[in-house]
């Protein structure tokens, strides 16, 4: 293993901050809207469709949100890598 490249402090903290925010959303859309609050949300409908909101989050919405989260993370991290000059050639 080579010695670690010297990195300006702040890179790892910024990474952890992104993770905290994105994983909170991850938790909220799946365990929150899809499970814990599903019964309450089922009192509402996704406008113009037959979906009860809690059911929709559990079987559709959470999956769409997961996808968005990963692509947002990729963008954020690629930008952060460039900012700190640690991107790959």
């Amino acid at each position, binding site marked *: *293993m*080579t*010695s*670690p*490249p010297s*990195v300006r402090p702040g*890179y*790892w903290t910024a*990474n952890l901050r992104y*993770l905290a925010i*994105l*994983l909170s959303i*991850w938790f909220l859309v*799946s*365990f929150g809207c*899809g*499970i*814990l609050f*599903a019964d309450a949300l*089922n009192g509402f409908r*996704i406008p113009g*469709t*037959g*979906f*009860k909101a809690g*059911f*929709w989050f*559990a*079987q*559709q919405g*959470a*999956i*769409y949100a*997961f*996808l968005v*989260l*990963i*692509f947002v*993370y*990729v963008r954020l*991290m*690629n930008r952060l*890598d460039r900012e700190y*000059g*640690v*991107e*790959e050639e």
Partner: protein
Amino acid sequence: MNVQAWTFTLVAISFALYIGVAVWSRANTTRDFYVAGKGVHPLANGMATAADWMSAASFISMAGLIAFLGYDGSVYLMGWTGGYVLLALLLAPYLRKFGRYTVPDFVGERYYSKTARVVAVVCAIFISFTYVAGQMRGVGIVFSRFLEVPIEWGVAIGMGIVFFYAVLGGMKGITYTQVAQYCVLIFAYMVPAIFLSILITGNPVPQLGLGGADLVSGEYLLDRLDGLHEQLGFAAYTDGSKSTLDIFAITAALMVGTAGLPHVIIRFYTVPRVRDARISAGWALLFIAILYTTAPAVAVFARTNLLNTVSEQPYEAVPEWFTTWENTDLIAYEDHNGDGLIQFVGPDAIDDSGRPVENELTIDRDIMVLANPEIAGLPAWVVGLVAAGGLAAALSTAAGLLLVVSSAISHDLLKGVFRPGISERGELVWARISAAFAVVLAGYLGINPPGFVAQVVAFAFGLAAASFFPAIILGIFSRRMNREGAIAGMISGIVFTAAYIIYFNYVNPAANTADNWFLGISPEGIGFVGMLINFVVAGIVSRSSAAPPEEVGRLVESIRVPKGSGPAHEVSA
């Protein structure tokens, strides 16, 4: 052409395609064999990961399970997709930067311990074998139903194909074959789904059709299904009947288990750069999501169709598919009240005078997807296509798992522990021998299933969640985590989870009810508790033992930064 002729033709064409791809992309070095030379484009890797991940269970069983479970089926949908967020954010980029070949490589090196490596190898082999036996069984079912050959022959043919391209092609052959298999399986899944969606709701997009109105009654499809369920004494489709805590635990165990499965993790070693590892988790989830957002729609279409087709119909007049599946014992009808009509009802069903009605129909959940095109009266080629898709899903997953077993034996055990001086050529020979051995053993298990394949698959998730996931996460995010903590954590997590599952499934199955479960968490979800135990034990033990050596601290610093991946971390194999 009839159904059987179509099935033969489509299956033969798809098999020829896989073999052609495997010959074109065979492996020449151990790097090719284990990680496809690390030269796979992220998009192709995403597609291969999707095919690898979506097994016969996703393709054949999942929509059927959801059709019978309703809202409770959401645990599979969220559980088997949400894990990719954890993979992309917490594991894939760091493991790619670490840049070896296998998961035990990471565990062994990060925790500077052969014991830790051996514990990891044993977990990897056990998890992969339980999985692969299920895949071979899926192959057997498709062959026996659609090609009318005995299950043994079906398994043997499947083994032959996998043997050919896994042993010859290694990861490189498997990756490009899986790309082809993804295309076959997603096409085979979407065509009947789109047909059904148009037939039932008039909307060609199944994800929208699911929220749309039924063409016949004009009511929303989901409301209509809830109504039918109430009328027939089932729990409402959109409500479900498991406890919230259990749903929570099962979902968490499946998510974390997904992120801890060695055959999924290993895929992220195959791409050229760290940034490719991040994005290829995204592509993988996109390709998986196409099927996973369609599955709940297929489930509702199938459920509605089934209730409309069989409920209160005279048994004499059942359609042809009903009789075909009866012959395979996957549908059974017993006329309890002697009226000649089929009563397909739930536990709460009562008739007009308030007396309970007995259910007369049992349907194996696994046949919903396979029978769906026939139930809806779709053309014969669609039925054949579904068979080819089911085979693609089973074979691609089996091949990926066999590679994990083979690399665990030749790379982690032989080179890593017993014969460190082995040459590259020798290691490649051993990799092929162990792949061949694994194929034969998997085939044997497929023909003589241990009787608990379905349960053991859930078992594999629980074990992965309770063992690998915490060990890897702590290895990346905690510099202080040491050998003692990781080993103690992995062992306590695994032992707790395994003991709980074994107790309720084999020692005392009579007690396997919600009243006796720990906090009402079923054995399916207990891996989540096992994971928490692993984290806590690892934390306590590591604080009370010596800090890891300095070079481990440098290793952790190094994997946290993308720069310098690739050649700098090349292994001289």
